[in-house]
């Protein structure tokens, strides 16, 4: 896949989100500069290095809970929050660029709704709910085509949040290991796939 195509796919994921209500979620990061057109690419960076992280402590706690519901620990890899996904999402929604600024109100409105819905149902914040109660809420918004009309915006939030959580997770060494990615190492030769595999697939 060339870079142009993979970027387009990422954009396509974002482009599927029509504008949701932007009210009540002021762009705290607006006016902050980005990393510029000539950043030093050879040194690792960290969230907060180029623009301040802006989620509140409570929002970050909720991001961690939801990210771990989407990407829990299993036999292959740790949970999302254990590998920096909260920082990734905070960096994302705090970034001064248009795509990220467009995501910010969607994410913040969705987080606000999650707590409101939890309180409406059980009288406590989403994070304080039992796992089954959390899943009951997520199940209603996990797939937009099946979400009821009043919850369409929430379903779009969930889809976007899942993309971001997965984006942050699969970027990491733990995510690469989970997918058994074995590239990005210098090889003396590249001989292609094992002929046995090609035969088993009917390709030779």
């Amino acid at each position, binding site marked *: *896949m*060339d*870079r*142009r*195509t*993979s*970027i387009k*796919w*990422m954009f396509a994921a974002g482009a599927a989100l029509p504008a949701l209500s932007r009210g009540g979620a002021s762009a705290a990061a607006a006016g902050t500069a*980005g*990393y510029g*057109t*000539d*950043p030093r*690419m*050879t040194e*690792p*960076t960290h969230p907060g290095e*180029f623009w301040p992280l802006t989620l509140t402590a409570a929002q970050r706690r909720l991001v961690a809970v939801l990210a771990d*519901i989407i*990407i*829990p620990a299993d036999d*292959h*890899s740790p949970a999302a929050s254990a590998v*920096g996904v909260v920082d990734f999402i905070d*960096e994302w929604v705090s*970034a001064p*660029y*248009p795509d*990220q600024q467009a995501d910010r109100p969607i994410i913040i409105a969705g987080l606000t709704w999650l707590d409101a819905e939890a309180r409406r149902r059980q009288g406590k914040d989403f994070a304080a709910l039992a796992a089954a109660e959390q899943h009951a809420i997520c199940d209603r918004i*996990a*797939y*937009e085509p*099946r979400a009821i009309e009043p919850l369409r915006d929430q379903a779009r939030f*969930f*889809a976007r949040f*899942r993309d971001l959580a*997965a*984006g*942050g997770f*699969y*970027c990491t*060494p733990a995510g*690469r290991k989970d*997918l*058994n*990615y*074995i*590239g*990005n190492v*210098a*090889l003396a*030769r*590249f*001989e*292609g*796939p094992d002929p046995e*595999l090609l035969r088993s*697939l009917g390709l*030779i």
Partner: protein
Amino acid sequence: MPFVTTRDMKRSYDVIVVGSGAGGGQSAYTLCMDGVKVLMLEAGRRYTPAAETPMFQTPDQAPLGGEATPDKNFGWFDATVDGGWEVPGEPYLRAAADDPGTFKWWRARMLGGRTNHWGRISLRNGPYDFKPFTRDGLGFDWPIGYDDLHSYYDKVEMLVGVYGSNEGLENTPDSSPGCLLPPPAPLVSDHLVRQRAKRLGIPVVPGHRAVLTQPLDHRRIPALLHPGNPTAQRILARDMSERAACVWATPCGRGCTLRANYQSTTVHLPPALATGNLDIKTDAMVYEVTLGSNGRANGVGFVDRVTGRHEHVSARVVILAASAAETARILLNSRPAGFPDGLANSSGKVGRYLMDTVGADLSGQIPLLESLPPLNEDAADGHQLYVPWWLYKEQHAGKLGFARGYHIEFGGGKRMPDAGTAAGLEWLTGGSYGAKFKEDVRRYYGSFVGFDGRGEMIPNEHSYCEVDPSVRDKWGIPVLRFHWKWSDHELRQAAHMQRTFADIIEAMGGRVQGKVHEDGARAIAPGGSIIHEVGGAIMGADPKTSVTDRWNQTWDVDNLIVADGGVFASNADKNPTLTIMALAWRASDRILERMRRREL
């Protein structure tokens, strides 16, 4: 010191080369190897791939997982610095900004220009591609034919290193023996595409890219490229021996510290500098070519971005290789007495007939590729195989509804996971989350194959650039305004691409992702977005209808040469870079010959 400031620049050079990309790099290389004193002027900053390239860095080390932003349009790790669709302080205008006919202009302000990040796909134009008007009555013939460039394609391939194979296909020329490096092994997905496309009558053959699948033969090649010139042979042999072969990892678009692929900065400029004949001045925004009283170009004016001052430097010959549109801008902004419409523009054709490549794409998810065992598929970073245009006969018989062809680039495999790897999977997963989602991501990772069509655009009267009468950039230089329109040929071609991709995906047992557009206007990528803009100083046989002659030399000023894509009289589906280099080498040989004859 070969990297000079305005202060230690010589007062005069044999040749000034404006631009340091494929055309400028090749021109400087050819001339310096033959003893010509060259000054290269580059608008962007100095760039040192060995120190600046992020070779094995991973997305978690980048802001936003390395995803594209307005600062880095192709993502954090893309080699481009100070460039993209917009360059701060250097605007351009579009006659119809909201129109689907809009044109976007990619620039890179860095030494080596776009060659640092380009796709490295290196295809030769074929015989038909130089005589399209003769073949179908549309567009323009070039004043040269394939035979004029064959030996230069050979030379460029040997110099920069291109992998590929000779297949003997129609209008898809073979290289001379000993030119091409062996192609890389195909991936699982490549094998599948080849097998299933073949059932549809679509040929799939090894791609051609400027990537060293093995070291270049530094004992054999220099003597072939520089016969009778032992100094050049020695310099090139040494430089070639220092280029490593590909290590089958890390994307070429980041650039390569090993010099295992072609960038002007790692291939053309080091040996040119080693001759001692090349001075490079970076941060030099050239805005005009100046004329002497004899009607010949005598130098260029530029803004030094370091001091902000306007400077002039002299030479016997001026080569413009600033990129098609930037070269047109320089010519249009050069207005010595008697040239109110710009220099070399007696035909009125400067800036006219801008072309890009037609692009359309589609991807599919292929169940047969799900849950494969761990595989290292970084390979040569794509384009192990490709589909050359295959419907020449049907097209020529008028059966397709569009006049020119396209090739197909495709890719799949278990590429390094990034922030997009698990995005947008709902159409497959039904919105899973939790443990099931992680299983789904494992299942679908590496099971996608993407197809990109790259097709020929026919030049038209509605696609051009001109200088805006009022808007200037931050250096005070008048800016370009672009006009753009596709014809039905391009729109139908784009729709045909998507139908073909869907057919191949289905033949692979896969599911198409997204919509297959029957309306070409929805299938086609916006003008300029494939970043293959050429034209604006087209070569021709008639000074009334073209800007340059068969030697890339402007008709009006015989020591002014255009050595970038500006001279293209047509834009075949083949990616333009290899042809730019072949033409630049040939044009520089012509300059050498004329210098020997004391005509310059």
